[in-house]
């Protein structure tokens, strides 16, 4: 294969992998703090992206025209708004279900996802249509044979990586991170150690949901289009990625995200005239991986003994 073409695939795969990883990392965080699967994560991402878009439209209407400032304000508003939404979800949907079977949280967040998605579709102006998302990053690009290198992609990769590294640092190197992990394992004992349980849960949901907003904006900037369904698909893939990577490990989520992107890309390239089978291929590989490594690629350390 032509080197340039190959490089292009790698570049595409990296961008896609970054998107998946960002979502997967969010799942890992929620799993880490409350041992729950928050299925509405993808839809929070959607709402975040739409909030960003609305902010942009507002700024535009107000005559704002600096790309950089637009971007910063947009990101800030979306992230904060979703952080607030995350806290509401935590407070009114997740905390009350703490003593119920774990799967009920899954169901309630699944339903919340539907509510969010349908709300965007019904209440955002023309919400059912795909929306153009402004390209706010520098559009410089160089063509190297079949490889089209774009500055905005590089920036996004860097930003995504920075966010993930930051999260990793937060979870494993800070006191907050320690409290988050402690709460996940034993809420009550964490409280007896002086950890403010409610605050930790709210903060975690704020961080996780802010992260979703960030991922949503990234998604918009990369594809220059958003629609009310983006979160659904990204949610499922992100969830799967987090799990094949190994829940509870940020690295696992990243690995899972890139693996998924890699599988889909490889599927498309290797099955050129049956490219529709690429998802069949990708998911078959996922099943095989789970059979081979039942607790994910980065295996959780065994901590339970008899």
């Amino acid at each position, binding site marked *: 294969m032509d080197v340039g073409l190959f490089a*292009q695939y790698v570049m595409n795969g990296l961008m896609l992998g970054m998107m998946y990883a960002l979502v997967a990392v969010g799942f890992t965080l929620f799993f880490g703090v409350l041992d729950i699967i928050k299925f509405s994560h993808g839809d929070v991402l959607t709402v975040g992206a739409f909030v960003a878009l609305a902010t942009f439209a507002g700024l535009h209407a107000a005559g704002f025209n600096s790309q950089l400032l637009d971007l910063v304000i947009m990101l800030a508003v979306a992230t904060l708004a979703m952080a607030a939404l995350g806290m509401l979800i935590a407070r009114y949907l997740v905390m009350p279900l703490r003593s119920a079977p774990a799967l009920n949280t899954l169901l309630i967040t699944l339903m919340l996802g539907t509510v969010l998605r349908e709300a965007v579709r019904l209440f955002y102006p023309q919400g059912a249509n795909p929306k153009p998302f402004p390209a706010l990053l520098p559009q410089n690009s160089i063509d190297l044979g079949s490889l089209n290198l774009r500055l905005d992609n590089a920036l996004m990769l860097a930003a995504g990586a920075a966010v993930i590294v930051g999260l990793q640092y937060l979870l494993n190197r800070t006191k907050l991170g320690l409290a988050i992990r402690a709460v996940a394992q034993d809420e009550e004992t964490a409280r007896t150690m002086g950890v403010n349980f409610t605050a930790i849960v709210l903060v975690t949901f704020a961080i996780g949901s802010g992260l979703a907003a960030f991922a949503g904006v990234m998604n918009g900037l990369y*594809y*220059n*289009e958003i*629609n009310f369904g983006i979160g659904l698909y990204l949610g499922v893939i992100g969830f799967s990625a987090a799990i094949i990577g190994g829940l509870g490990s940020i690295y696992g989520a990243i690995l899972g995200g890139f693996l998924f992107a890699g599988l889909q890309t490889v599927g498309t390239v290797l099955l050129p005239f049956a490219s*529709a089978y690429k998802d069949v291929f990708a998911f078959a590989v996922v099943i095989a991986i789970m059979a081979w490594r039942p607790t994910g690629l980065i295996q959780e350390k065994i901590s339970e003994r008899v």
Partner: protein
Amino acid sequence: AKDKVKVGFIGPLTGGVSVNGIGGRNSADLAVKLRNADAKAKYEYELVVLDDECKPNVAVQVATKMAADKDIIAAATHYCSATAIATVDTYHKFGFPVIIWGAVLPDITYRNKYAEIHRVNGTMINQNDANAELVSKLGYKTVAVIHDTTDYGKGHNEYFSKALAKIGKAKIVGTFGVTAEQQDFTAELTQIKALNPEVIYFGGLTPIGVRIRLQMDKLGIKAVFDGTSGIVSDAYIQGLGPLAEGSLAFREGAPTEKLPGGKFFMEKYNAQKYDNPPEAYGAFAYAAMDMILNTIEKVGPDRKKVIADLGNVKDRDSIVGKITFDDHGQNTVAVITKYVIQDGKFVEWDDSEYASGKRKLPGQK
């Protein structure tokens, strides 16, 4: 007071293609409203609306619900081919006359010969013939196909490929199936880029059409974007902005705004202040409903008589042009509108600056 008569509408009101369903629903609703406002009408009509979610099993359920309700005389049904094809037997079993207003799969009318089933819009065969012809006429030699793996996309791929092969001037250099939920097409498009086609034919609906067109640009692919009726939607232009320029698209029937009734339709539609545009097939939904209402006015609220009357539709006027049903109930619309997007609007090809040579599509001779 006038007697009450119920008529039905079915379309996708939730889920990914709900814009089209809601546009159709509004249009059908408009037909009923206008009729009820007409003092000369013999009956007062009530519109019963059901959501098929674009899912066959749901469609069978709601079709049963509607067809089994003897008070409902006839209905305009289905935008999604999968739901239309799934329900024809139900309608037939219950002797319930329907007019399909949006689904384009040929089999819906042609697989059986059911007197209950009619369709005002054309099938995808017609538009793909026109599409292949235009592509060939413009002198393009290489085409890559992307289609979604729904019946809509797969059908389009099939009929377009056949039509193009029959003309024999251009050849298909690669075919890519994608799923309707897919967000990222860069892997497919990178391959296409390597194949370097002049035209990318896309069989699918607006949401992924927008994504593919955008990602083509990201990867620096300059080929002509050649769409189907699935992208004839304001949403496509809104979603793309200036990038929409130069996309091709095809749809059965004459362009709404060119017909005498079309202007009337758009005016009335806008007057109702629906929060959704009628979309590509709104006019057909209106036409279907209007035809149902005309027929009931003529023969009375009786399913059998309605079926009998719809059996002999020839050259009937409608806002989508003259309608003639063949023995399968299929409107034999010869006319296909070819569109090119010019300055943020769907412009008929023949009226466009691309046809006149003032502007050029990529690679257009």
